[in-house]
């Protein structure tokens, strides 16, 4: 079983309509986020009370918020910050979880048992509670939110990696590699990992979208991104107070979150649908929540 050539994978993926929509959406959000790092139409750290709650206009495409800041600029930076948190959380989860899962699959015995118990423990630990504890210990901030969310990505990636790897270990060519003297670690790196990579990419897109939702939830209770910085979740939370007078305040970030999550989920779905069914069956669990 060879690793599928990536260009042919892409071509097959593009045949799926959901993938196409997902790619366009995700790319749009990524673009907005990247541009916001160097330029936004207006600065987001000013306060201009007389100008607050302005409605859509040529000068302010999406109006202004409760402090008079330009909504479109806020949206761009909000997307960037939400993405930042979700991305780093996903990276934490993957960088720790994948090796754990691969090791668990290749070790059997007590090491596997320990890793599985560790996984169970993190799954069992109430996610939001641990986020609260972490942010109470170290102060509420976007970074601590990343760590808190990241910790909960670890068992997800570990599970996926292990599941995918387990089915590969039974294959003949892996046996051959072992017989030829390669150590478990080398086999993991050379043969197992590249073949589960596609599974992991699918899971990564899902965890990314979940990360944005998690950040929004944390922001709602005040533990996510802190003002004066903004994120989609924080924008939505602050907008709730003004819902009766100015509903658009909430619609803008709310719609952004929904579209973001859908785009990345579709991207992941499209990728998964194009993969070899045997691989996807063994490994992927959409652990969300």
């Amino acid at each position, binding site marked *: 079983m060879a690793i599928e050539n990536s260009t042919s994978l892409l071509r097959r993926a593009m045949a799926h309509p959901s993938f196409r929509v997902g790619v366009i959406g995700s790319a749009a959000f990524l673009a907005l986020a990247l541009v916001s790092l160097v330029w936004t139409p207006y600065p987001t750290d000013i306060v201009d009370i007389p100008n607050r709650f302005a409605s859509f206009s040529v000068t302010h495409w999406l109006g202004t918020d409760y402090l008079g800041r330009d909504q479109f600029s806020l949206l761009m930076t909000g997307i960037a910050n939400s993405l930042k948190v979700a991305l780093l959380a996903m990276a934490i989860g993957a960088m720790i979880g994948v090796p754990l899962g691969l090791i668990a699959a290749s070790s059997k015995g007590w090491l596997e048992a320990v890793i599985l118990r560790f996984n169970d423990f993190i799954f069992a630990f*109430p996610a939001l509670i641990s986020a609260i504890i972490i942010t109470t210990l170290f102060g509420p901030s976007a970074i601590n939110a990343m760590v808190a969310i990241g910790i909960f990505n670890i068992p997800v990636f570990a599970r996926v990696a292990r599941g995918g790897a387990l089915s590969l270990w039974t294959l003949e060519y892996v046996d051959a590699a072992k017989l030829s003297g390669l150590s478990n670690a080398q086999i993991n790196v050379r043969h197992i990992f590249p073949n589960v990579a596609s599974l992991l990419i699918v899971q990564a897109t899902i965890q990314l979208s979940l990360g944005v939702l998690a950040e929004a939830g944390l922001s709602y209770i005040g533990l996510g991104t802190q003002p004066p910085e903004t994120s989609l979740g924080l924008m939505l939370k602050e907008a709730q107070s003004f819902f009766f007078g100015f509903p658009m305040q909430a619609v803008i970030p709310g719609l952004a979150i929904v579209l973001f999550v859908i785009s990345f989920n579709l991207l992941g779905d499209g990728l998964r649908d194009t993969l070899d069914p045997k691989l996807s069956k063994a490994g992927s669990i959409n652990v969300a929540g």
Partner: protein
Amino acid sequence: MFGFALKRLFGVAVTLIVAAAIIFFLLDILPGDPARFMLGINATEDAVAALRVELGLDQSAFNRFFGWGAGVIQGDLGISFSQRMPVSQLMSERLQVSLPLALSALTLSTLIGLPMGIVAAQNRGKFGDSFTMTLAQIGIAIPNFWFAMLLVLAFAVTWRIFPPGGFVPWSENPLVAAKSLVLPAIALALPQAAILARVMRTALVDVIQADFIRTAMAKGLTKKQAIWRHGVRNALLPVLTIMGLQFAFLIAGTIIVENVFYLPGLGRLIFSAISARDLIVVRSAILVLVAMVIVVMFLVDLAYAFIDPRIRTGGQSIGN
């Protein structure tokens, strides 16, 4: 089966003890002095010192850990710092909100999500599939606090069918208590139902393509019969895992929904206890939560093993 259960049970016990230790020592490092916080800005040093002694804060960490552990085993979870009430009493009051809420949300999400997933899988590639899956996508993508607020605005403020929040003990007025949990349960259930629908669909699609469905059809069953009789049963395995995880989330991750509906649930108890530096409540409450979840996952494992005998003997199966 019995041996398997016993082995797992041992694992559960070990996990619990390790969990207790981690929880205890992690929380000991929380900055902030509970006594000072309780007495407020103008308190004198004497008052604060007196309270610290009264609360046992002058003893060593290990002493306190073993004292706590011993108490927990006997059912005594300690007395709350800030509220001078037994923690077990506080928690049982909160559980009468959180447990029914979690169970009804889980039931609701299962009743909505599983059929959706089955419909999608059966109509794979056709309208039924894309329609249900689009709904599921939207259901997952809406932030739950936002969805909860919309529910309140519609059903409580505008149409006044359900209360906007709050809770009355079951013993006082069961009808009002039940009504108070409807909107929160819906707010919790719909995103979870969306997730379940997707998982069910994926699992079922995999199973449909598997050999034993073809075998069953070769034996004379229609495709539908084959799916229902054999497919669903096997697809349930990953679904069960997800449901176990969802229970974990529903019992403790509901702070957001509890806030929106100002419900006196476990989530808010823990949150306010943390803010008040009430370590006794936080410790015991988290331990109880973790214990409940570990037990549920243990039950899921047992169910797994029951459904798929291969697991008992250490082999592989779908979904794990």
